[in-house]
């Protein structure tokens, strides 16, 4: 019962959504709207379950004083503080909630991502060896695009045309081949999930 009922539910909603694509009638789009509402609410609840799970994980590490528990305390405190400020004083423009967003959260997040520029540079220097034919072709393509699109080469006729040509032809063809492979794989896995053959999402029994 614990495994068969969820599988029946998954089969029912999967088949309905699959059939709905082919049925344009009013009833069919109402069914779709209803299911999409439910899926949205389930997903939002899953987000909040994930957050509660994360808080539980941090709380355990604090209670056990495992190494680095002080940082877990910082995370919990800032999480509760941000949530309190948001629920208590609203989240409209100009609220303290948005102040924390604009002057603490956004700049730090942007800085974490900008670290990547440094790692790309050090990787380009120390890790980028043309060790075989494939790597040579990859490096050539990388340099052509960097020079022809983002750098000085962009304003020199042949370079930018070659770069745009690479992007729209060979590179696009390979990406299309990957899409077809991924498309077939996703359809196969989705069919197996709906038909109850693929059950990893239910977890080990």
């Amino acid at each position, binding site marked *: 019962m*614990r*495994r068969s009922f969820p599988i029946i539910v*998954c089969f029912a*909603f*999967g088949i*309905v*959504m699959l059939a709905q694509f082919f049925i344009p009638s009013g009833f069919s789009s109402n069914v779709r709207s209803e*299911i999409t509402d439910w*899926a*949205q*609410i*389930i997903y*939002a*609840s*899953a987000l909040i*379950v994930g957050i509660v799970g*994360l808080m539980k994980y941090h709380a355990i590490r604090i209670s056990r004083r495992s190494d*680095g528990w002080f*940082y877990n305390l*910082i*995370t919990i405190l*800032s999480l*509760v503080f941000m949530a309190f400020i*948001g*629920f208590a004083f609203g989240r409209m423009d100009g609220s303290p*909630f948005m102040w924390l*967003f604009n*002057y*603490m*959260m956004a*700049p*730090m997040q942007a*800085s*974490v991502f*900008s*670290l990547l*520029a440094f*790692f790309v540079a050090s990787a380009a220097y120390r890790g980028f060896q043309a060790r075989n034919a*494939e*790597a040579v072709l*990859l490096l050539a*393509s*990388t*340099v052509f*695009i960097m020079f022809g*699109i983002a750098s000085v080469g962009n304003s020199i006729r042949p370079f930018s045309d070659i770069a745009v040509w*690479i992007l729209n*032809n*060979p590179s696009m*063809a390979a990406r299309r*081949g*990957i899409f*077809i492979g*991924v*498309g*077939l794989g*996703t*359809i196969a896995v*989705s069919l197996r999930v709906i038909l109850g053959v693929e059950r990893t*999402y239910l977890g080990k029994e």
Partner: protein
Amino acid sequence: MDIGFIYNYLIASERLGIWIAAVLTLAIYSFLYKDNPIYRFAESLLVGLSVGFLLVVTFETTILPKALEPVAADFGRVFVKGQFGMIGSFIWVLVPLVLGLLMFARFLPGAGWISRISLALYIGFGAGASIPANMQSYILSQIDGTVRPFLTINNLLATVNAIIILAGLISTLFYFYFSKAHTGAFGMAARLGTFYLMIFFGATFGYTVMARISLLIGRLTFLLRDWLGVIS
């Protein structure tokens, strides 16, 4: 003395905000020297703030208006104003809320499996919606896009490009074909597929470098212009 007064007087000043943002930016950049407590502090603070932000926004924009308010409204009509005709709508609106609450069953020992019902509904919905979308957009449209240019072969460049794309697509598919060893003519076709893949990965990495550098430009512009005022 409510938070409003303190907020308006002290924290609202933009200068103070920029200083705090700059200090936190440098705290993150201290990781470049080495992994240190200042960085770990800033990162833990960031994780807490962003998860807190997600909690508030998700609750207030989806859970409240889509799940709780309709139930409260119907509850009011049926049980407070006595419009018993609305019982059907009340039950119907209750269903998504219950499905959402089932997800929390994971925290009850032994009742974890109940949350799988909602999870199964969501995964069934996702799979059912993605099958036709994938077939239409990832397969049929891609075939159409590759074959259609051959209808309007008017100049040499268009012909060459159409052939290059067709050859690239077929050889890439050969590379991802696992039922035959890469030997002989078939091996050569698959190797041609690798060359196309390398050009794609190279182009992607070239663009990745551009993206990452733009992020660094954004932060340095903030530090040099908004904080230090060195540039206009």
